[in-house]
């Protein structure tokens, strides 16, 4: 009879919930089919590691019951930690973004008596207790006086026995009692249970997640896999507010669940949904609980932003503070172990507000959002096209901090792509090309030269005053640093139209990467012809030696190389001045 009633309530609440879902909302992390068993590892703080087969429908309480005989005596209690959080009893494991071979961390609490007294250092139990207290304060007494500890720390969970007896029916999260309030039921039925019972219901639903992201001022309220965590980290407060207004005004966004995205270099070789994980920066173990939730990318990407409690004995005993070290795993494949991490591509997000790509005018998702003030958006296809066209024109810029990179397509101030792994989207071949040119630019920026011999291009870092350069480690070609021809004595004869190159200003990057004239007298006839054509049609940029053709217009030249952009005079073959403008602007 009781289970019948439960079943009815279940279907009722799932119907109520479905009313709150956005139209075509599809939840990526919805529970996998029942038949699919998850094989995970449980690692204890004492160093044990056991493998467990579990059904995604299991709750944490059920898993604990399953684990207890293997890990500890019945008097002892276990807390389970995953991705920086102690998992609440009521959480359905399938709603965590656990994958095959994921590792859960179990901490065995020594005795119930000692666990009940507050330990010297603050623990997760403290936090949960604190949260409970907060819940009691914030909730009307009528609602929570009966069961303030509904979804919090396991040891106070009144009905663990009920749960074990319920083990046959593992379809849904079990409930402690049928006398619970509506709020508690709703919460339990939600895809991602909250640590605090007083939590605003939030699930896969973007609107709910937004609300949750907005209202959660308190610490440690959500799991790292929650949609609200993704929203909090990816969107600024302003963006969240805009999105909320957009939803309130009835504009249908994409309605999808937000995710993190990573580049999985192996085995997936592509952009995949990423899973945020955390470990201790001292012992690199995952048995940590966060002092506070990460709220922005800086918290996640910059080391030592957020403190954590580490349960590893060595760290626990040490006086030093442990910091949370966030990392990402690819959700596209079964994890290959602790080292199997992936680079977060933080500019990629779900297109929740449904912004059109500024290039193709289509609404796609996910998209690349640039870090400029205007948050310009490109869809992934257009981003790839944008990069490829700039790469082919060699218009990437070498930035001393970031490397070889691009600004947003509108060229906004301070909009450079800071994580160059985003260029992995170009595919292996193009990325190799990108890396090759990036290396060349880095050598040039460091004051080095590239061997001018065709097919070589070896990077060299000779002394600043060295003019006779030998391609050491490369082809052995000996060349003149000034004209990039085969080494010679006397003045350079190339392209200077009457002025010795040696008299020209020397900048940090006095070298070229694509002069093709070094094989004069050595190569085939077309080489000679090409060299002659280049020589007769072009002049080298006085700063970087890029052969430049003047196809028309005035004598004021601007170097076409993105990292040079030198303003020079075609006539004087030196920096453009007002004198040039006055004397021979038009030749």
């Amino acid at each position, binding site marked *: 009879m009781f289970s019948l009633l439960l079943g009815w309530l279940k279907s009722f609440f799932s119907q109520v919930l479905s009313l709150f879902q956005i139209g075509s909302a599809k939840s990526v992390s919805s529970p996998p089919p029942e038949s699919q068993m998850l094989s995970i590892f449980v690692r204890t703080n004492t160093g044990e590691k056991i493998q467990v087969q579990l059904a995604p429908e299991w709750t944490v309480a059920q898993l604990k019951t399953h684990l207890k005989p293997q890990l500890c005596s019945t008097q002892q209690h276990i807390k389970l930690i995953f991705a920086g959080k102690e998992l609440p009893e009521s959480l359905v494991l399938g709603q965590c973004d656990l994958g095959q071979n994921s590792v859960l961390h179990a901490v065995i609490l020594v005795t119930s008596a000692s666990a009940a007294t507050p330990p010297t250092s603050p623990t997760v139990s403290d936090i949960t207790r604190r949260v409970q207290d907060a819940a009691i304060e914030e909730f009307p007494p009528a609602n929570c006086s009966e069961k303030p500890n509904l979804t919090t720390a396991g040891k106070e969970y009144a009905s663990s026995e009920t749960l074990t007896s319920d083990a046959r029916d593992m379809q849904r999260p079990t409930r402690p009692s049928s006398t619970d309030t509506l709020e508690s039921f709703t919460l339990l039925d939600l895809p991602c249970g909250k640590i605090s019972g007083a939590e605003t219901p939030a699930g896969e639903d973007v609107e709910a997640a937004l609300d949750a992201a907005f209202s959660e001022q308190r610490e440690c309220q959500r799991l790292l896999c929650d949609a609200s965590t993704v929203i909090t980290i990816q969107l600024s407060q302003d963006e969240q507010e805009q999105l909320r207004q957009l939803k309130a005004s009835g504009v249908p966004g994409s309605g999808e669940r937000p995710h993190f995205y990573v580049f999985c270099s192996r085995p997936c070789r592509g952009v995949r949904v990423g899973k945020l994980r955390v470990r201790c920066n001292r012992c690199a173990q995952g048995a940590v609980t966060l002092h506070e939730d990460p709220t922005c990318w800086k918290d996640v990407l910059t080391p030592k932003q957020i403190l954590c409690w580490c349960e590893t004995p060595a760290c626990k005993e040490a006086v030093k503070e442990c910091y949370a070290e966030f990392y990402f795993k690819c959700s596209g494949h079964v994890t290959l172990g602790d080292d199997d991490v992936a680079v977060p591509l933080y500019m990629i997000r779900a297109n929740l507000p449904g912004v059109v790509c*500024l*290039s*193709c*005018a*289509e609404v796609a998702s996910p998209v690349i959002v640039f870090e400029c003030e205007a948050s*310009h958006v490109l869809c992934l296809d*257009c981003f790839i*096209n*944008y990069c490829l*066209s700039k790469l082919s024109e060699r218009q990437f810029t070498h930035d001393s901090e970031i490397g070889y990179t691009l600004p947003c*397509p*509108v*060229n906004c101030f301070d909009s450079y792509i800071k994580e160059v792994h985003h260029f992995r989207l170009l595919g292996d071949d193009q990325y190799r090309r990108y890396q090759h040119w990036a290396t060349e630019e880095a050598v040039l920026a460091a004051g080095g030269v590239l061997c001018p011999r065709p097919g070589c291009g070896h990077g060299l870092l000779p002394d600043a005053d060295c003019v006779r350069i030998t391609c050491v480690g490369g082809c052995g070609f000996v060349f003149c640093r000034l004209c990039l021809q085969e080494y010679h004595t006397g003045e350079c004869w190339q392209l200077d139209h009457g002025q010795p190159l040696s008299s020209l200003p020397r900048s940090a990057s006095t070298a070229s990467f694509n002069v093709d004239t070094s094989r004069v007298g050595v190569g085939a006839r077309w080489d000679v012809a090409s060299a002659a054509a280049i020589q007769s049609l072009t002049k080298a940029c006085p700063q970087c030696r890029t052969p430049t053709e003047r196809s*028309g*217009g*005035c004598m004021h030249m601007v170097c076409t190389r993105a990292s040079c952009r030198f303003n020079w005079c075609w006539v004087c073959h030196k920096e453009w001045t007002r004198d040039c403008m006055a004397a021979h602007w*038009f*030749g």
Partner: protein
Amino acid sequence: MASGLPKRIIKETQRLMAEPVPGISAKPDESNARYFHVVVAGPESSPFEGGVFKLELFLPEEYPMSAPKVRFMTKIYHPNIDKLGRICLDILKDKWSPALQIRTVLLSIQALLSAPNPDDPLANDVAELWKVNEPEAIRIAREWTRTYAMGN
């Protein structure tokens, strides 16, 4: 509309037809949706006032990653436009960005007619005269407008 035409071009074309820029008309060619017949009216209080200037605008395959190709078909005496009608405009070259549109390009060209920029010339002789003897340059520009841009 030709099949395989990017949505962006379709959208831009529709908007150009629905809300034309004052003083500018741009119509896609019947046989090639990437080729536009453009007519720009000479801006008021410029030497080109009263003139009707025909241009051609072509959206290359890479558009919007690369700029549209625009050329004056009507002869014009302007320091930034050469004998072949080629236009010296930064947004058509290195300042192009995919966030710009056909509409913004045409507006810029209209603005260029209002404010010739002899400091960034394409037609050397015109630019030189424009700098040395502006009244004479403006006189010639007016004359060319009457001769070439008012006939039909």
